């Protein structure tokens, strides 16, 4: 799938001018509130008509103001999951799920009711009314409803933003399964580094109505300067890891990555499962010699490949650990004292307890299980 967008749109004082292409499995539109990401997704869905520009999915032109093309939303075959689930209150959950099938030509129906119900774990809810569901259940039903219309592209507009942390943790694994087990490409709007780092294959960063950057998630997440101020502390390296073994005695899980073994609090995932691990730059210390007598369990050897000024009295240091980049945010003073510079051999030090469910993305750590 390739999504190509080149549009200009103004709403009152706000002007959106976006141009990008993405071919990712899950493309995140990322930016602070007011950056224009929701406007952009509404333009793709056809809920808004751009003043000017062109939007195409896989070569199929949805909007082209110059050629006077505007495909109405009900003909786009683009699924949408809204922040507020927007279920139909006068229908049961099953009625909501079946709604889109009516309007899908039989030859293009690829989504199967049983498979979607299984995927989202909503089998026990089918007879209920939307008013009787919890926020998390509603959102899962809304995802199922969009999927069962067999869309060519699925848009998700901050689907977790109105949920509390526990509900988010409940839904995230389902979105991961959706990404990994179905073939449908997803565009996901979010302002949360945790969600984007965990879910996205590609990121388009929006800032004040303009595309600030776009590229693979690993690269974008290291550009702390691109992150909104209140989310900057969440930025850092994103590593794809595998569960090597669980350490029953100490309640830990050992993850294997390109950078080396990383110990995190016990995860409820089987051995061999892949875990996308985010290492916050602010959680990484730098040592110039192999540290001893230190409580931190994760010590990764590497070479400094970049030194960038950070916000305030900080610098951001990229360390190449066997091909994987780990990012550290330290003070200007430490850099000066340790004489850190490009090419220097150093050790990145990360406390095991600095990992939590938001960064290991494998559900809540299982606590005190024996």
């Amino acid at each position, binding site marked *: 799938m390739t999504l190509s967008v080149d549009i200009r749109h103004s709403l009152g004082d706000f002007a959106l001018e976006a141009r990008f292409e993405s071919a990712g499995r899950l493309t995140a539109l990322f930016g602070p509130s007011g950056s224009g990401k929701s406007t952009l997704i509404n333009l793709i869905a056809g809920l808004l008509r751009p003043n000017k520009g062109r939007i195409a999915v896989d070569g199929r032109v949805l909007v082209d103001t110059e050629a006077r093309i505007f495909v109405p939303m009900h003909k786009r075959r683009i699924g949408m999951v809204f922040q507020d689930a927007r279920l139909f209150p006068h229908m049961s959950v099953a009625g909501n799920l079946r709604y*889109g099938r009516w309007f899908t030509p039989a030859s293009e129906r690829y989504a199967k009711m049983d498979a979607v119900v299984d995927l989202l774990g909503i089998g026990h809810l089918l007879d209920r009314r939307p008013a009787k569901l919890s926020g998390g259940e509603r959102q899962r039903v809304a995802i199922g409803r969009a999927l069962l219309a067999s869309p060519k592209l699925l848009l998700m507009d901050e689907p977790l933003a109105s949920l509390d942390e526990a509900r988010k943790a409940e839904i995230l694994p389902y979105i991961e399964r959706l990404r990994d087990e179905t073939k449908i490409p997803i565009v996901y709007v979010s302002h949360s580094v945790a969600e984007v780092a965990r879910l996205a294959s590609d990121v388009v960063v929006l800032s004040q109505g303009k595309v600030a950057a776009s590229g693979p998630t690993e690269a974008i997440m290291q550009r702390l300067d691109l992150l909104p101020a209140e989310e900057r502390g969440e930025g850092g390296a994103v590593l794809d890891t595998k569960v090597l073994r669980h350490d029953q005695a100490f309640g830990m899980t050992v993850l294997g990555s390109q950078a080396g073994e990383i110990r995190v609090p016990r995860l409820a995932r089987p051995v061999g499962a892949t875990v996308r691990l985010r290492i916050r730059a602010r959680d990484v210390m730098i040592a110039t010699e192999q540290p001893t007598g230190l409580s931190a369990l994760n010590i990764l050897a590497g070479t400094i490949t970049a030194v960038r000024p950070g916000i305030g009295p900080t610098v951001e240091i990229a360390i190449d650990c066997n091909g994987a980049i780990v990012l550290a945010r330290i003070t200007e003073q430490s850099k000066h004292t340790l004489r850190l510079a490009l090419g220097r051999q150093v050790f990145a030090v990360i406390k095991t307890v600095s990992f939590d469910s938001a960064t290991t993305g494998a559900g809540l750590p299982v606590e005190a299980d024996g």
Partner: protein
Amino acid sequence: MNWLLDLTPDEWNAVRLSIKVATVAMIASLPPGILLALLLARGRFWGKTLLNGLVHLPLILPPVVTGYLLLLTFGRRGPAGAFLAEHFGIVFSFRWTGAALACGVMGFPLMVRAIRLSIEAVDRRIEAAAGTLGANPLWVFATITLPLILPGLIAGAILSFAKAMGEFGATITFVSNIPNETQTLPSAIYTFTQVPGGDAGALRLTLISIIISMVALIASEVLARRVGRRMDIE
């Protein structure tokens, strides 16, 4: 109870006619009522205020004036009346159909108002969600909007029915007071009060009129509650 049900054939006819006239007025008003309510709730066009005023006119004009205007337009020599009689064979003047027209027109503002309010209360974002699922605007209206405004629709229909049951001024001006043809309950009661010894008949019809209105009101309450319970808003 016996004296209550001991109606003369003319009185029974008035009761039957009234129910027929009110039912036809209500049902015939529904489609244009929904259309106008939609237009007023959602439309953005020049002259909307004027249209709104026109719809409400029967509410503020003296009923006799409305009746006379109907006579001028839908009477045998009126432009609309002559056209309809010639091309469709529909005659209003001095027929029960004319009574239904008068009652429908008088109840129209109440019906449009109730439906309009319920349309304005519909969350348009839910309709947009249906659109993204592939439903074209007509399907969205039929499967989402219409079921969601059902309580308002019922309320509007009952208001129109109740207004038709009680309508007097416009009806008697437009189609007069002909037993078995245009003499509805209020006209019949009025006739009784104009003749000596008509008190008993007037009282009987008054009680029947109260019973019909109460039954209609209770039925609408029950119906609206059942619909409302079916779809507690999130």
